[in-house]
């Protein structure tokens, strides 16, 4: 946007247009090129992308700066087009009428005398100018985009025939982690499975530890073999043994054997003695 665009295709009539000076005269003096053959008008109007586009056209046609619109003149011209459209019974979009109203309002505000010049008061055209400029920059941007080199129109991406692909099936990759997770999941599910179907007593070491502790006393020795019940099977024996070993480790019981292969006896550790936990273990080791 330059302040003084080159006078491209300016007709002499336009430079002489008097309405730019005196607002009242604009009504009677219409620019001659406003009259276009009626059958061409429809096509002509279709080229506008709306009221802002039409206004821009009217302004540009007279080489005027958007920032500096002779509002009365432009309003008159705009209304001429609106009238032409109605005369031709063209369906008139609401946007055009809204713009007509806006122009009329601006015009009336500008004609009203303002008693005191206040700096804060905005020029009535400000909003219109803002919208026109805003629209114009995107109108321009659309043209610029249209001129960008475009695929299929200006530039042509190449795709050549590729050599025949040799089929090499790549089998899925598996990490050890994945495999181990699958193993764990399968095992855990299997456990739940067995609980439901084989109603087996849960043989937890912790539970057995409690029952062993309940069976022994600090006063008397209990026979080691008494702690095992053959009817529980091998699993039961293993759990019992683990429970005994765990209890020894935690210094909760003492294990006594007089000589190799002699019967083993168990006694609960004295409550006061928390310390000498290793002795019973040593006894086992000696045996």
């Amino acid at each position, binding site marked *: *946007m*330059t*302040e*003084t665009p080159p*006078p491209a295709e300016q007709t002499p009539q336009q*430079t002489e247009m008097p309405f*730019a*000076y005196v*607002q009242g005269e604009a009504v009677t003096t219409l620019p001659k090129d406003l009259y276009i053959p009626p059958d061409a008008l429809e096509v002509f109007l279709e080229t506008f*992308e*709306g*009221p*802002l*586009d039409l206004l821009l056209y009217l302004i540009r046609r*007279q*080489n*005027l*700066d958007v*920032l*500096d*619109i*002779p*509002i*009365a003149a432009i309003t008159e011209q705009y209304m001429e087009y609106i009238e032409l459209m109605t005369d031709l019974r063209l369906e008139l979009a609401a*946007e055009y009428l809204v713009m007509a109203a806006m122009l009329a309002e601006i015009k009336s505000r*500008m004609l009203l005398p*303002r008693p005191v*010049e206040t700096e804060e008061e*905005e*020029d009535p*055209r*400000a909003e219109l100018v803002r*919208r026109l*400029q*805003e*629209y*114009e*920059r*995107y109108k*321009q*941007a*659309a*043209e*610029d*985009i*249209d001129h*960008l*080199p*475009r*695929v*299929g129109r*200006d*530039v*042509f*991406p*190449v*795709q*050549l025939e*590729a*050599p025949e692909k040799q089929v090499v099936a790549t089998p899925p990759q598996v990490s050890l982690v994945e495999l181990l997770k699958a193993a764990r999941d399968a095992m855990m599910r299997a456990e739940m499975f067995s609980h439901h179907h084989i109603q087996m007593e849960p043989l937890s070491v912790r539970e057995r530890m409690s029952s062993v502790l309940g069976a022994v006393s600090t006063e008397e020795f209990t026979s080691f073999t008494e702690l095992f019940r053959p009817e529980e099977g091998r699993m039961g024996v293993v759990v019992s043994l683990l429970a005994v070993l765990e209890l020894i480790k935690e210094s909760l019981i003492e294990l006594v054997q007089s000589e190799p292969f002699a019967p083993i006896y168990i006694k609960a550790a004295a409550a006061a003695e928390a310390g000498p936990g290793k002795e019973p273990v040593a006894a086992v080791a000696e045996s």
Partner: protein
Amino acid sequence: MSEKSIKHIVEAVLLAAGKPLTLDQLLAVFGDGEKPGRDQIREAIAALQEEYAERGIELVQVASGWRIQVGQEMEPWVSRLTEEKPARYSRALLETLALVAYRQPITRGEIEDIRGVSVSSSIMKTLQEREWVRVVGHRDVPGRPAMYGTTRQFLDYFNLKGLDDLPTLMELRDFDTINAELELTLPGEGAEAEEAAGQAQEPGLVVVPVAGEGGESNETLH
């Protein structure tokens, strides 16, 4: 792996790809034992660009990567190959596209506000079908209207690396400073079109009832 074969592999792969390739994608075609550095790929690209320069072929970077294309200078011959004319797009569509490109994320209502006319659904549909525009979210206002943005395909199609490559927008001028601006710019331009300026600009000044400032600027002018 020699410089030369890196170049030839990069060329062959780009020619066969049929879509832009990123540097990473180009690197990925090299086997484990022969991986060149990123710099070597860049050098290969530069070498190819140099070779192509005189041949009407281009190796360009667009949004999704590097692509080999027949350049604009070859258009007259290439376009004779096909009967059909490339599609033309309406101004309404291009203006809508421009607004989405420059103002994204933007709602349809916001596009309509700026253009001063309603945007037809078919335009939004076409833009989305072409995969130039997509819904990027919803504005948190009543009705939760869709917000639109442009896609990588849009940039690829218009030969752009990124949104920064879009033509710069026309500058907006501040209406409030119009008079000051006139004062500053007119004297310089006055020589070229002194009469035109006087005639074309003055009506505006006369209409605006800013007697004091307007008068001053006029005095400066003459």
